[in-house]
């Protein structure tokens, strides 16, 4: 018996050539587009590693002849913003102090909101939800001045706590929507089973729903971290120079009118400011996609 003729029978899909015409077109296009988008980043990184004399020579695309980390050090620790000359470090810690409480507060309140709206329907809950969602479509600018008055009245104007409150409130519509839809997609019977098992409002939330909803919490976290970290408007309005977040500090460094424009320091400062959201994306990118998909598809 010969088994040799087995191998002559073609099996599986036809192998494709690595350099087929369609592949070249697809990858060529993709490469060109990524270069186009990566070029500014390249310029930023290269410029941040050059000294000022080298920058003045032009050649913004070329790598530094002599690598220096001095601009990064300066941007972080002693670039001047107005009268303060302690660089971005102060802004960084301010932003952390704003971010962490806002993050915890907004996500915990919104997830409980979403849970209550999805599972403990009360009279008027749909109306309540509609109003909340409507809030997501109102432009922020309309509410700036009323909030100034509000914060002034409760004595939080210019403080970190005030800004935390503002971020928590503005995160509420979108986060509540996110959590409500997520919890609404969890089979109702699970919730009923937990009630028969004697779990109450908080018991069901903490013991049953929370452990199976980690991806959606990651999604909410990413949304909030990027949103709050990148916020400029609220930061500049509702805090004062000593408590300015990093973005405002960055603006003050880059837009300072006295002296020479230090492009390398500006680039380094900008990159430093962008590092936190970037890191979040890299660490949790996969979970982010999974969470969005899990929330979107019912079932």
């Amino acid at each position: 018996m010969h088994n040799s003729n087995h191998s002559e029978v073609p099996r599986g899909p036809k192998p494709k050539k690595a350099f087929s015409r369609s592949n070249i077109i697809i990858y060529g296009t993709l490469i060109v587009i990524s270069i186009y988008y990566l070029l500014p980043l390249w310029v930023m990184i290269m410029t941040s590693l050059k000294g000022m004399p080298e920058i003045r020579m032009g050649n913004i695309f070329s790598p530094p002849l002599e690598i220096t980390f001095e601009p990064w050090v300066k941007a972080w620790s002693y670039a001047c913003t107005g009268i303060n000359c302690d660089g971005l470090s102060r802004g960084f810690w301010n932003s952390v102090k704003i971010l962490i409480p806002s993050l915890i507060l907004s996500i915990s309140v919104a997830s409980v909101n979403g849970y209550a709206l999805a599972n403990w329907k009360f009279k008027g809950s749909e109306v309540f939800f509609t109003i909340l969602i409507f809030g997501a479509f109102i432009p922020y600018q309309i509410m700036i001045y009323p909030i100034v008055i509000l914060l002034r009245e409760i004595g939080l104007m210019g403080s970190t706590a005030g800004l935390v409150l503002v971020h928590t409130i503005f995160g509420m519509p979108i986060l509540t929507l996110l959590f409500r839809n997520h919890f609404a997609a969890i089979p109702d019977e699970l919730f009923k089973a937990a009630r028969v098992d004697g779990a109450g409002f908080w018991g069901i939330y903490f013991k049953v729903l929370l452990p199976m909803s980690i991806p959606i919490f990651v999604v909410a976290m990413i949304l909030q971290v990027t949103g709050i970290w990148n916020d400029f408007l609220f930061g500049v309005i509702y805090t004062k120079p000593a408590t300015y977040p990093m973005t405002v500090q960055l603006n003050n460094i880059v837009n300072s009118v006295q002296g020479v424009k230090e492009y390398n320091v500006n680039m380094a400062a900008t990159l430093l400011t962008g590092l936190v959201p970037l890191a979040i994306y890299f660490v949790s990118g996969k979970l982010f996609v999974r969470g969005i998909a899990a929330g979107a598809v019912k079932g």
Partner: protein
Amino acid sequence: MSLKTPSVKVCDLDLHFGDIKVLQKLNLEINQGEFLVLLGSSGCGKSTLLNCIAGLLDISAGQIFIGDKNVTWSEPSERGIGMVFQSYALYPQMTVEGNLSFGLKNAKMPKDEIQSRVQRAAKILQIEALLKRKPGALSGGQRQRVAIGRALVRDVDVFLFDEPLSNLDAKLRVDLRVELKLLHQRLKNTMIYVTHDQIEAMTLADRIAIMKDGKIMQLGTPDEIYNRPQNLYVADFIGSPSMNFFKGQLKDTKFTFGRLVLPMGSYNFKNKSKHSEAVIGIRPEHIITGELAKKATVTTNVKVKLVEPMGSDTLVYADLLDHQIRIRMEGNAVVKSGDILEIGIDLARASLFDSKTEQRI
């Protein structure tokens, strides 16, 4: 098991969502240790009724008693019930053991008591080997066993089942059905079981309640429901293939339709009313063929239109006075379409209904 296994009593239960009346003035009494099946097509309110008994839905009016306790406004966990759901509803992040013990932990039961109850339930359901696994690693049948176990560990008097077998494949469904019946024989709890599958209802139930539009159409033993349906809806709903119905006139004990006159002397009348428009219902297996047909009181010839062999028996479609009738014959019956078949009707087992009220005569 506790010695006292009480009944469930539902009094004048009303439930409406806005203007939609889902349940209306519903009364139901379930005896101790009884296996009651709520049967009906989708949207008849059977699951809703079960959820009301479980306390998962707030009722609009009426009262519910479990045992001698009025539980109308009690929390589900305080009613002394265990519930099994169609989608299993296991907690995905907990192990089987965690799933079984969740309710007991919420009730703040001592650890060793929890341990022994979980072990006992696992032994009864033969899931001891699965205790450390998560629901994701179980098959459908195993998951439903765990779900039953979760009701079992609670050591309650009343079990509620909401279409527990509907998500399983056909073979497993039959297996678990048998196991459920054995479990009931062993535990002797009161069980209320919702299904739309009449085979499940017939095989499991001590009594069946057939529901339609939030009302109970008939409550009775499977035998009563099948052989003495109290109205046209029940007669039509139960039995597959369904009953053959003919409209005609009832005069004294003679039922006439077309050229056929059926002497209903052997029929067990509920209330004899004279001269009424009536409907007769005859089950496909009560149409007799072959040698026996000749001995029947009424015989006639029909032309076979279609034959459906089903193995255990053969279903024959034929025309009788412009009606298509269904006849159930033996599995080995030799018959083909076009044949002329002599049939007899077993009138003692027929059902008569008033045309207007649709109630049994």
